[in-house]
């Protein structure tokens, strides 16, 4: 007869703290100790400590960062295009809290070896976070400099092991009208969910980035929490927010703006001062924040200034046709 003798140091499974709680407690304690320390020294409580979100552990990636001055946190978080919450620039900061991002998973589908429903933590766990300070150029002719925290898209894609049929990657935003008031609008021309896509070589480019944070903390909802794409050489609408689905495809997917107005928004949507939007010029951009009485106009650069890294992707293509 086999009798299992427990050594004195043995702890039954039931007493073991699950890892997630353990990690949360560590996070909580770090925060608590840090705030206690800060509070005990008057004047040391800095503004960013009061910002919402969890502090992220990341390394700076200066080789991928501009040295231009990032826009202030308030500008980045109160001036957003996230039509799921309304078309006004301030609508997302007002209403995005109606979206729940606590338990998030991403459905991975299509031409890959590792499809399935991934909890966000599992999708990100093996990767070291980086901070990259990128320019973001909106198709509406304004731009901001934003310090993102996240992981290179290529690293995540490699783990999902796309096969030779995977010529494109397609992304989808959460579709939840009960949490997203813009999706309840009667006169919206967007066919929800919001969709975007990249060619495989674009997705694997070293600049393509999955952001989970901003200014060192987890993303506020209005900026696309908990996980969003950032493709800095393309107009902002390509950088899809609050991603719930990634699909590897053989055919080129249709993006939402392409579906609404194909003559105004193409699949590529590369920043290009030589190709005007039919309703306005793309030669210049207003770098925000802008003063009240003087617009802060600067010249728009081809590929938003990232030509060195990405121009090769489009060799031989007529960019006025593939806009």
């Amino acid at each position, binding site marked *: 007869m086999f009798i299992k003798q427990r050594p004195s140091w043995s702890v039954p499974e039931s007493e073991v703290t699950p890892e997630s709680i353990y990690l949360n407690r560590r996070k909580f304690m770090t925060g608590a100790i840090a705030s206690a320390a800060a509070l005990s020294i008057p004047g040391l409580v800095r503004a960013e400590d009061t910002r919402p979100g969890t502090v992220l552990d990341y390394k700076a990636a200066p080789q991928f960062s501009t040295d231009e001055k990032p826009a202030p946190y308030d500008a980045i978080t109160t001036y957003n295009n996230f039509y799921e919450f309304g*078309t006004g620039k301030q609508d997302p900061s007002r209403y995005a809290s109606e979206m729940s991002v606590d338990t998030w998973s991403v459905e991975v589908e299509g031409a890959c070896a590792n499809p399935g429903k991934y909890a966000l933590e599992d999708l990100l766990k093996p990767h070291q976070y980086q901070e990259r300070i990128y320019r973001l150029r909106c198709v509406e002719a304004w731009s901001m400099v934003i310090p993102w925290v996240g992981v290179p898209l290529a690293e995540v894609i490699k783990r999902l092991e796309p096969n030779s049929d995977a010529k494109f990657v397609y992304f989808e935003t959460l579709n939840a009208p009960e949490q997203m008031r813009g999706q309840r609008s009667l006169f919206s*021309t967007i066919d929800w969910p919001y969709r975007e896509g990249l060619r495989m070589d674009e997705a694997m480019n070293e600049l393509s980035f999955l952001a989970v944070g901003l200014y060192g903390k987890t993303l506020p909802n209005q900026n696309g929490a908990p996980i969003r794409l950032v493709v800095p050489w393309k107009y902002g609408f390509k950088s899809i927010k609050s991603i719930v689905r990634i699909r590897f495809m053989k055919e080129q997917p249709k993006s939402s703006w392409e579906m609404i107005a194909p003559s105004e928004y193409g699949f590529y949507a590369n920043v290009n001062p030589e190709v005007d939007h039919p309703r306005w*010029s793309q030669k*210049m951009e*207003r770098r925000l924040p802008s003063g009240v*009485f003087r*617009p802060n106009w600067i010249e728009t650069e081809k590929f938003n200034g990232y030509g060195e890294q990405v121009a090769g992707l489009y060799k031989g293509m007529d960019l006025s046709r593939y806009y």
Partner: protein
Amino acid sequence: MASAVANKWRGIVGKCLVFGLALLPLGFLVADIVNANLGPDPGQVITEALGIAAFQLLLVTLAITPLKKVTGWSGWLRYRRMLGLFAFFYAALHLLAFLQLILGWMDLWATFTKRPYIIAGAAAFLAMVPLAITSTRRMMKRTGRWWKPLHRLIYPAAILAWVHFLWQARSDITEMVVYAVILAGLLVVRARWFGVSSLVPLKRT
């Protein structure tokens, strides 16, 4: 006699009230500018707010005649000129804000010849200019029987202003639909009461 004086005073008080109300959008904007409350792109916010104020006042001006007809009180007419001039005032500020705060006076030729929504807005503004100029009592007398057909330019001005607004929509047109219903309502009741020809500008009826 006493009632005439009371009536005059009522008119003055009413005009002051309408004057104050019509200045509210500007007041709010100035307060927001002073408090730096307009976010990272204040020029855009200011320009949009002035444009919306102009369009709303245009609609209020257009509502005066129906209001008179429905309520049977002709006192409304007393405020019409002031409201129309305020609409013009906001439209002029809107144009100036666009030129200074958004364009920075760059690319003027291309902007006003190539961009359909700008052309519609500029046409709406141009249609309002002669109305503002001929709004004084003396100009009314001088233009005589042409005054009314001239001032029917307010209808195309309002429609063009709406088109100017619609053509800036990117996906959600709820607001534009609401304004379209109001504007169409105001035009339709006129057509029913006074005939379609009463909506045609520059043609004497």
